[in-house]
Every structure is written in structure tokens, then in C-alpha cells.
């Protein structure tokens, strides 16, 4: 059996990501408290007092923001939450979509109607615009459970598509000759599900799950760029002196929206890093998904 390089690269990238996420905060150069450094004295004559944002230095490899918080620490501390949000969205989506798709495998009935209307509704319109319209509904804007609602809404946008894939696949399997043969032999339905349906469905679901993590990462990143936060509160922001929605978390999407204004002052330095982190995650899961697909395809060929 030839080695599956794609899968190995994917696994390597995933483990690097996990190390960065879970061990990163305990590294010595990371400021876990994200302290604000309001000023700094340098020994250089003529430039004794330095005000934030501080340029990249040995202490702050990526510089600091205009409140004096270390950018690298912000990036590392935000990793866990960013990945968690995306993972939860995709998990909710699959928890809703897989049972729906399985229920509708006969292509009729209530669940079929739900799937096809959801699928049609959101597939004819850009997901980002659907997400903006849904997330700006007043009912979800001012509730205290905004975070929960926004996760459900973003998950819901593509439930139809995922359920449709599951439905098609299940429908195809249920018409295969070997399933009919199993039925004719009088196998119990639990055994048919365990031995016939799940092995045939699982590869598709697992690979699609990986690809979807990338898609949701992109979507939430785009929302961050558009200043739409999943978690916010209404109040007065003392730092910028404005009243409005204040972002409450330090995930990468919030960093994107926070630093987007820098580009108008030709300060491109930091904005790339959250975008790069998002790109790395998308790439990791795309490579992993493709690797898994190849892995499962080969396994199937070995059986035949």
C-alpha cells in the first residue's frame, strides 16, 4: 500500500495547530494576562519615552496594539476560542443534519420537505449575506444569549446542504444490491445499520466535516471583517469613547475587525497574522479532509 502523504501532512499540520493552541499559552514569552503597557522608557537619548503601539522588538515579536498589549500573546490566547467557535458551529450543523438526512432517505415526508426547503433557501444566495441578514435581526441582537443564537444560526445556514448530501448518499446505499441481500438474509436492522450503512456513510461525513470547518472558519472570519461579533454587549467603550456594541472576546475574528482600521493608516503589520492563522486552519482541515478521502478510498479498494 502506497503511503498517503496528504493524510500525513494533514495530521502533522493538525498536531502543530493543537500544540500552538493548547500549549502555546504556557510558553514563557506569552503574556497570559494580556496586560496593557501604557508607556515604556528606552535608554536611547532623544527617544526616552515610548508610547504604544510599540514596534516589533525582542520582547514583542509582532509588536503591540495601541493599548500596549503584546500582539503575539493576543494571537495565541485567541486560538482556543476561535477554533472552539468554529468546531461548535460545525458540530451543531452535523448533529442537526445527519439525523435529518437519515430520516429523509426515502425522499418523502416531513424531513425531506425540511431538507429541500432549507437547501433551496440558502443555496441560491451567498452565505455571507444570509449570515449578515440573520445575525442583524433585532431579536438576536440584544438578547443575552446572542453567542448561542449566532452559533445556531450560522450552523443552520448550511444544515440543508449537509443533510442533502447525507440523504443522497443514504438513498444510494439503500438501493444497493448488497443491502437488499442483507435484508433478504433476515439480518436485524441494527446490524444492517452498523455493518452496511455506517461504514459506507462515515467516510463521506468525516471528510465533509473537515472541509466544513474550513468553510465556517472563512465565514466567521468574513463576519469579523464586517465588524459583526458573535459575542458582544451594549455599553460604553472607555478606550475609544463610543457607545455601541463592544466585542467581549479576543478571538482571531475580533482581532481582524479591530485591526482592519490600521490599513487606512498604512499599518499593515499586524492584520496579516490573524488572517494567516485563519488561513492555516482552513488549509489544515482541507488537507486533512483530502487525506482522509484518499485513505477511505484506498481502504474501499482493498476490500474489493
Amino acid at each position, binding site marked *: 500500500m502506497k503511503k498517503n502523504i496528504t493524510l500525513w501532512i494533514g495530521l502533522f499540520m493538525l498536531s502543530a495547530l493543537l500544540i500552538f493552541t493548547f500549549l502555546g499559552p504556557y510558553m514563557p514569552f506569552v503574556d497570559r494576562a494580556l496586560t496593557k503597557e501604557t508607556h515604556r522608557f528606552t535608554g536611547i537619548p532623544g527617544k526616552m519615552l515610548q508610547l504604544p503601539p510599540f514596534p516589533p522588538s525582542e520582547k514583542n515579536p509582532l509588536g503591540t496594539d495601541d493599548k500596549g498589549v503584546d500582539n503575539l500573546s493576543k494571537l495565541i490566547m485567541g486560538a482556543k476560542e476561535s477554533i472552539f467557535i468554529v468546531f461548535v458551529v460545525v458540530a451543531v450543523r452535523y448533529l442537526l443534519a445527519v439525523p435529518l438526512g437519515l430520516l429523509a432517505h426515502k425522499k418523502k415526508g416531513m424531513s425531506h420537505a425540511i431538507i429541500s*426547503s432549507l437547501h*433551496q*433557501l440558502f*443555496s*441560491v*444566495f*451567498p*452565505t*455571507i*449575506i444570509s449570515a*449578515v*441578514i*440573520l*445575525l*442583524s*435581526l*433585532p*431579536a438576536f*441582537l*440584544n*438578547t443575552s444569549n446572542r453567542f448561542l443564537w449566532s452559533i445556531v444560526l450560522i450552523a443552520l445556514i448550511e444544515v440543508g446542504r449537509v443533510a442533502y448530501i447525507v440523504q443522497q448518499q443514504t438513498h444510494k446505499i439503500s438501493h444497493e444490491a448488497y443491502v437488499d441481500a442483507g435484508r433478504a438474509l433476515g439480518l436485524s436492522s441494527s446490524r444492517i445499520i452498523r455493518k452496511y450503512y455506517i461504514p459506507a456513510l462515515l467516510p463521506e461525513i468525516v471528510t465533509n466535516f473537515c472541509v466544513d470547518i*474550513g468553510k465556517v*472558519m*472563512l465565514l466567521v*472570519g*468574513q463576519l469579523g*471583517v*464586517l*465588524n*459583526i*461579533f458573535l459575542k*458582544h454587549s*451594549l455599553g460604553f467603550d472607555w478606550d475609544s469613547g*463610543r457607545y*455601541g*456594541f463592544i*466585542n467581549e472576546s479576543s478571538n482571531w475574528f475580533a482581532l*481582524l475587525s479591530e485591526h482592519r482600521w490600521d*490599513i487606512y493608516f*498604512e499599518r*499593515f503589520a499586524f*492584520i*496579516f497574522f490573524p*488572517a*494567516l492563522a*485563519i*488561513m492555516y486552519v*482552513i*488549509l489544515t482541515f*482541507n*488537507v486533512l479532509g*483530502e487525506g482522509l478521502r484518499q485513505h477511505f478510498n484506498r481502504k474501499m479498494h482493498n476490500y474489493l
Partner: protein
Amino acid sequence: MNLEKLGGTTVGKQILRTTAIYFFVMIVILLLVLFPRTPEHATEEVLHRDGSTYTRDILVISTYSIEKHWQSIKSFFEQVIETKSLGTTRYNVSVESEIVSSMKNSLMTIVAALLLSFFLGIAKGFFDFKMQRKKLSIFGHWTTWIFQSIPDFFIILFVQLMLIRYFPITRFFGREGWDAFVLPALLIAIFPTMYIARITMAALSGQVGQLYIQVARAKGMSEKIILYKHIFRNCIGTILTHLAPLMVYVLSNLLMVEYFMYYPGAALRLYQAIDYDPQFGTGMLYEPGLILGITFCFMILILVVQLISLVARAYFEPRMGGNEG
């Protein structure tokens, strides 16, 4: 003759079905856009610094009831019928003129990006397919892959930085002239191109080993003719089914590109009309007429592309029973 008729009716049926779906989607969008948003007075208890509390009036939009929703829909349509207009925008212009002007700004970009991504994507798919068997396959589908994984905002940021730093002669924020639509069209086309390239590559790979290819080879046809005439003919139907999703991707990238370039196009205007501004919250400058108008225009665009894809498939794909029979 009989087959032609059959093909004709199925295409007609599909066109009807597609139009019905778009009608349904438009109704759902109407319900969402005309969600009740009029603010109401409420009181809030505020804790003073010295520990005492006082109440103050605030505006909230959080309560929802079906009557309010119905009222909001009714008043919107009453106003539309009365004034024969979708309303006025925040700039005191009629909504229709604003829709027309912003769509005019975007349409060129959309069409250019769509055509560019479709043809370039097919070319890239062929390239990837041919590269597959060579040692240089790393430049084939791997590049497609990496480009597909780059977030669009990252590419735009990067291009913006490069142009401003190293090619200041290019007008990144151009409003008119050729560079006002060439650069956005190129930026928008990147992701959809890679999408079509992957579809093309998968479709071409799916044909490998089919009997008709072996027959053609046995007859002594050159590989070029087999690939471009026979295999491609069998794949074009599959590729064409992805024309509508392609348009959806183009439109979603359009928002990002217009947002970063501050280009006064339809997608940016739609986003502005939703009035999601963290400085003020949402609601005060909300323009339902404009949102409905622009979403309607977008849907028409996607619908037209879908109908083109249906007709083109009927024409190109022999199995669908078009004029080829």
C-alpha cells in the same frame, strides 16, 4: 423528434421549478427583512456610583409578535402602493435610482468575474489533469488547493498592501475607467476559478478508463482530440451544473472586495442598508426597500445564470436530450 420533445418538456419543467424556488426564497427574505424593528420605550435600572439606583428611559427593539410583523409588512406595502416607490434612502434619493446606480457599478465586475472564472477555471482544470501524471503534479492540483484555502480577505489585503507599497501608480480605490472594474474582477475571480478548476479536474478524472476512450484510442485518434473533443464533451454538462453556485461565490466575494476597496457597488450598498454598524447598533438607518431591491436583483442574476446553465446543458449534453438527440 420524440426525444427532442421529451428533452424540451423536462427543460421547461426544470425552468418552472427553479423559478418557483426563487419565488419561495424571495418570500422568506421579505419576511426576514420586514422583521419588526421599530424601537420602543422601556426603562432600565442603572446603578449609580454611590450605590443608589435610578431608572432611565432606553429604546429597545427586542420584543417580537406576529401582529407587529404583519403590521410592518402591511405598512411597507401600503407605502409602496401609495407612493409607487420603494421609499427614500438615507441620502434622500429614491431607492430605485440608488439600486440602478449601484447595480450599474457592480454589473460589469460581476459579469467579468463570472466569465473569467468560468473559462480560466476550466483551463486550470485541464492543466491540473494533465499535470497529474507528471512529476510536476505539485504545480497542478496542489496550487488549486492552496489558493482555495486562502481566505478572500487575506488575498485582498495582500494585494492592497503590494499595490500601495510597490505600485502606487495603480488606483486601488479607482471609481471609473478600466481599473475600476478590472482589479475587483480579478480579485473576485480567484476563488471561483479554483472552484471550477476542481470541478473540471474531478469530472475529467471520472471519465478515465471509460470504454469510449479505449475505442477512440483503438481507432488511432490522437490524445489531444480524445481529451478536448470526446472527454470534454462528456464533462461539460457536469461543469455547467455548477454555474449557479459559481455565481453565488462571485456575489459573496463581491461583498468582500467592495468592502475593502470601498467601491460603491450593489453588495456594499446592501451591507450598508442592513445598517450593521457597531458605532450605533442597528435600526436607525435601516433601509428595507433597498435591501429587498438589491437582493431581488441578485436573485434575478443568479436565476438568469441558472437558466443559461439549464439551456446550455440541454444543448451540450446528449443524455439530457437536447437538439443533439
